């Protein structure tokens, strides 16, 4: 208990916890779970957007989308590295993902059906991600906080890019505007779900707040997202698919309707439109890549052995 108190004291003093520092097992476990989930989300998140690279409607957009998806892979890499500082390997984490034991953000279990979805994902999904992630830049665990600083910078670039796609569509032909509206209709609620269950139903919330892994509650962040996103949507001339959405002068916030929690839990548990396909795609890449990874390893060993032999011969 003395250890836990001392640890909490460091946290309260806003000291960063570093890999070699002593830490409570629960703290470590929570971080491994959260960082792993976060890394997996980046990796699985490459799929819905990757789906439009070969069909991007202009070379400029194609290049930007390629770069974006590549950034996501990069984020995955930083995050796996951050998790590895806690003693868990990328292989282990990948296997947990493929076994369905580790989660990733449910938003990626929805399909990208039109080009406008690429805009909507950038604007809404990356927007929501940033809301979640900005506070993580001050997370008590040093490596995670530092990874998030890099991630956030790129994410906000992606978010602007997504908004710009939406803007182009909203100012385009009637068909393009319809496409933008349709994308907003389909992505709005899943984006709100990204902040997780209500605070009252959240499992890990309180302890994470105390450990300063989290800094705001799910509902706080969700409200922040709605408040900042609604004016952006109005500026585009689009309509949010929520009849209860309106400015509440008194609260100084937007009121909004209730999330369909049945859908939320269904998708979390594996019943979303794309859960099976996303995991199947990752599994396929993993399985079909096995011989490549083995070859790389075998070659590295051969090289080492040869260098060794050469060194011995030279001595």
């Amino acid at each position, binding site marked *: 208990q003395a250890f836990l108190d001392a640890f909490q004291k460091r946290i309260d003093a806003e000291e960063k916890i570093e890999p070699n520092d002593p830490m409570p097992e629960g703290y470590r476990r929570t971080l491994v779970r959260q960082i792993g989930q976060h890394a997996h989300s980046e*990796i699985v998140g*490459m*799929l819905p957007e*990757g789906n439009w*690279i*070969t*069909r*991007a*409607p*202009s*070379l*400029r*957009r*194609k*290049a930007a989308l*390629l*770069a974006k*998806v*590549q950034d996501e*892979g*990069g984020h*995955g*890499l930083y995050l*796996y590295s951050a998790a590895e500082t806690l003693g868990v390997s*990328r292989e282990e984490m990948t296997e947990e993902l493929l076994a369905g034991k580790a989660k990733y953000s449910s938003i990626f279990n929805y399909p990208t059906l039109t*080009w406008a979805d690429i805009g909507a994902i950038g604007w809404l999904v990356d927007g929501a991600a940033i809301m979640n992630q900005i506070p993580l830049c001050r997370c008590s665990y040093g490596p995670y906080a530092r990874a998030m600083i890099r991630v956030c910078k790129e994410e906000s670039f992606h978010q602007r890019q997504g908004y710009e*796609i939406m803007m*182009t569509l909203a100012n*385009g*032909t009637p*068909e*393009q505007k319809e496409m933008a509206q349709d994308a907003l209709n389909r992505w709005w609620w899943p984006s709100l779900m990204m902040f997780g269950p209500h605070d009252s139903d959240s499992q890990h919330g309180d302890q994470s707040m105390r450990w300063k892994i989290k800094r705001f509650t799910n509902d706080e962040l969700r409200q922040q997202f709605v408040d900042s996103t609604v004016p952006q949507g109005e500026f585009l001339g689009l309509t949010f698919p929520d009849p209860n959405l309106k400015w509440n002068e008194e609260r100084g916030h937007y009121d909004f309707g209730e999330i369909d929690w049945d859908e939320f839990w269904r998708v979390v548990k594996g019943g979303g439109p794309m859960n099976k396909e996303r995991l199947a*795609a990752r599994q*396929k*890449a993993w399985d*079909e*890549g*096995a*011989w*490549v*990874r*083995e*070859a*790389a390893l*075998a*070659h590295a060993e*051969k090289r080492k052995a040869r260098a060794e032999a050469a060194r011995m011969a030279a001595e």
Partner: protein
Amino acid sequence: MEVSRDHFVTFLLRLADDHLILGHRLSEWCGHAPMLEEDLAMPNIALDLIGQARALYQYAAEVEGKGRSEDDLAYLRREREYLNCLMVERPNGDFAHTMLRQFYFAAFMHPFWEKASASTDETLAGIAAKAVKEVSYHVRHCGEWVIRLGDGTEESAARMKAAVEALAPYVDELFETDAVSEAVSKAGIAPAPASLRSSFDSTVQRVFAEAFLDMPETAWPQTGGRQGRHGEAMGYLLAELQHIQRTYPGAVW
């Protein structure tokens, strides 16, 4: 020595199409690579290729002077009007095929861009100066994979050999000479493809020696891409590439 506008545009489109189509193929891997590092490296190379294609299409559009945009050229021609060589349109196959294809193309483009950076055409020289740095990374990265796989496990060596055999018929077309390539090289705009053969061969030899691979040989080189005669896989690639542009004519994205 001047080159005709038609020849120059054709030359630029061939080059641009090579880059677009190979970039397209490579980007099909996105999110499906054998390891995360390659999920970064392959889009990175694809980005370079798309960037080079854009520069070339923009310049082709300018030289052509018919008011077409880079996207008009990239998206709105018919299959028989695409002038890429056959190698770049080959389906990805496995990772060994993809890396070898990329290695061949880079081993060809590296001396090409090197020479072209001293082009009598300033715009092309500028494109070349930027591209040569990018493509030397491609040669290195893909060459390393050819070595790793050729000298890896039994399976990887077998796959690498199969890739060499499968792609062999498409190597010679890179060096094909015709009125267009001659006119362009005589004008000092770009090297004659055939003049790059020895550099290509020595790059390939160096890597293949380390990879325990035999040099590609074929009794029957395939050709026709430069005249827009493609393989059957090309139509499907274009259907995908063009779909949005074709579906919403005139829209801005």
